[in-house]
């Protein structure tokens, strides 16, 4: 070993020694998530922090940021250094790959089940005793029924509801596009208030007392029913609906800059652990873990869940429907 290499090694060792205390300080992880997952991730963060401490002895701080998931994605595109995203829309993660080039385009293959540790479907919440006798999509287009759902233009939640209705109509009317369109147009016509997001619709239905049916995620519908036992809402899960996936991924460009790759990866992988899946099921999300699934079999009715591929072919096609001048605009034209 020559003198120069030796001094190089010493320098390197010194550099590591100098930077080591810095990295031993609490590291931070920023999770950019959707609006209604605030409580869910508050609980999960506690779970993960304990797990990480046990595994590595390191104490970490996890910061949460919640808003509409497209708004969150825009913030990242504009430079927010979030380490991981946990969204309720595949397209909002895709945009980070396509427009921002912050993650690889095949991000969905990095974790099991299309990188979606949990999923849900679209369901109906009706008032006490189900006075309008709602049990399927057909009941929603009746003249005497008023619907509350967010605006499909501003809410992923509502886009899923639209796709679910479309999937149902395709099964029901087969190859007759005119009848499918008529059904969808009738459904949109029955909507009394288009709030800009899911929580807004919940407020309109629960607090303002408007509408006969609230259309939103099964998880949200169940949460509302549990949170307002006095109002005795009833949950209706239609026999055909949409499989709404909740994609998660780390932002490669950001974790590299923040030095949090190992942490980000573990944070997302741990979502698939049995204890995390149990927590997710507690928030009324459907999960993949067999044990947890068996434990909750009675809480999640076994209905037919269609994927976006089955309904529209692909996410790109689906988003065409909602683009300006697209099919949704045509259906709502007056």
């Amino acid at each position, binding site marked *: 070993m020559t003198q120069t290499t030796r001094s190089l090694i010493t320098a390197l060792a010194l550099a590591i020694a100098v930077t080591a205390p810095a990295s031993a300080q609490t590291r931070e992880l920023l999770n950019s998530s959707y609006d209604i997952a605030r409580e869910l991730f508050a609980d999960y963060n506690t779970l993960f922090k304990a797990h990480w401490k046990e595994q590595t002895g390191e104490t970490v701080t996890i910061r949460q940021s919640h808003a*509409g998931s*497209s*708004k969150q994605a*825009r913030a990242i595109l504009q430079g927010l250094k979030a380490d991981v995203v946990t969204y309720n829309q595949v397209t909002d993660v895709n*945009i980070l790959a396509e*427009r921002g080039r912050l993650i690889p385009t095949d991000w969905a293959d990095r974790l099991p089940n299309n990188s979606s540790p949990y999923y849900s479907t679209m369901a109906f919440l009706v008032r006490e005793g189900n006075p309008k006798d709602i049990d399927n999509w057909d009941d929603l287009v009746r003249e005497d029924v008023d619907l509350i759902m967010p*605006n499909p*233009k*501003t809410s992923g939640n509502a886009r899923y509801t639209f796709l679910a209705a479309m999937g149902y109509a395709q099964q029901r009317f087969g190859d007759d596009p005119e009848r499918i369109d008529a059904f969808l147009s009738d459904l949109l016509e029955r*909507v*009394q*208030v*288009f*709030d*800009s997001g899911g929580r*807004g619709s919940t407020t309109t239905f629960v*607090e*303002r*007392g*408007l509408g006969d049916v609230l259309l939103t995620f099964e998880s949200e519908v169940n949460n509302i029913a549990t949170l307002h036992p006095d109002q005795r809402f009833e949950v209706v899960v239609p026999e055909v609906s949409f499989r709404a996936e909740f994609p998660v991924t780390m932002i490669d460009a950001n974790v590299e800059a923040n030095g949090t790759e190992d942490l980000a990866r573990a944070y997302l992988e741990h979502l698939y652990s049995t204890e995390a899946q149990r927590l997710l099921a507690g928030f009324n999300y459907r999960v993949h873990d067999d044990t947890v699934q068996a434990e909750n079999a009675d809480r999640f009715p076994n209905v037919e869940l269609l994927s976006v591929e089955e309904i529209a072919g692909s996410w790109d096609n689906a988003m065409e429907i*909602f*683009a*300006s*001048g697209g099919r949704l*605009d045509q259906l*709502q*034209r*007056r």
Partner: protein
Amino acid sequence: MQAEADSISSSVAKRVLPGFGLSLGVSLFFLGLVVLLPITGLFIRAAGMGWEAFWFVISDPRVVAAFRVTVLTALAASLFNCVFGVLMAWVLVRYSFPGRRLLDALMDLPFALPTAVAGITLAALFAENGWYGQALARVGIEVAYTPLGIIVAMAFTSVPFVVRTVQPVLEDLPGEDEEAAMSLGASDLTVFRRILLPSLWPAIVTGGGLSFARSLGEYGAVIFIAGNSPYISEVISLMILVRLEEYDFPAASAIAAVVLTASLVLLLVINIWQERSVKRLRGG
């Protein structure tokens, strides 16, 4: 007139800020930094798309409908504010009663309150199960989730404009003119029409114009009470958000540029008009 001109020039002589050049320079610099630069950025972003694409975006039927809804409701809200605002200013200036100072301070609340808070509160009040909504529902008037709701929200957030522009003019107006007119046997209505209105008119129009410009871009308060039904109760600021939600930044900028231009032109017209009518009032 001459005496007034003298007093102005003598007050100009005693300047607090250093040098006209420096003061103007600093003001223009900050104006440019805070107002002109972002606005130019917006226009450049919109202009990057070419006229044809620009026209395509803003002539979309749904966007046009939103423009129509916004302009009509903003107009209604401003007209309401012109009446109510003058009344409010009148009460605050010409009467003294316990709690007047409090009322005066309350008048600024719509400015201080985050508009979203205003929107949520108004929606709660005017919903069918809310305090006002219940009563109004009995006579068959629906406010929340209709265009009427938009008017209420816009009127609430912009009423201080009218009050605060009319108030100082009213304070400056000598009460003697009214008393003289009344002692000569003029009715209350005549006094208002012939003595007060001619002097207050410029201030009312200015306040109403500001209120209109503000209402054009109102989002937070409106969104919670509008119902947002396509072609009926969608406002233009919602359409901007929709385009952003589609990651269509140029289209959002294009719509925003139209609103911005409308507001700028409106403010300019008000300023020119006000200057002229002030001259006319002074007999210049």
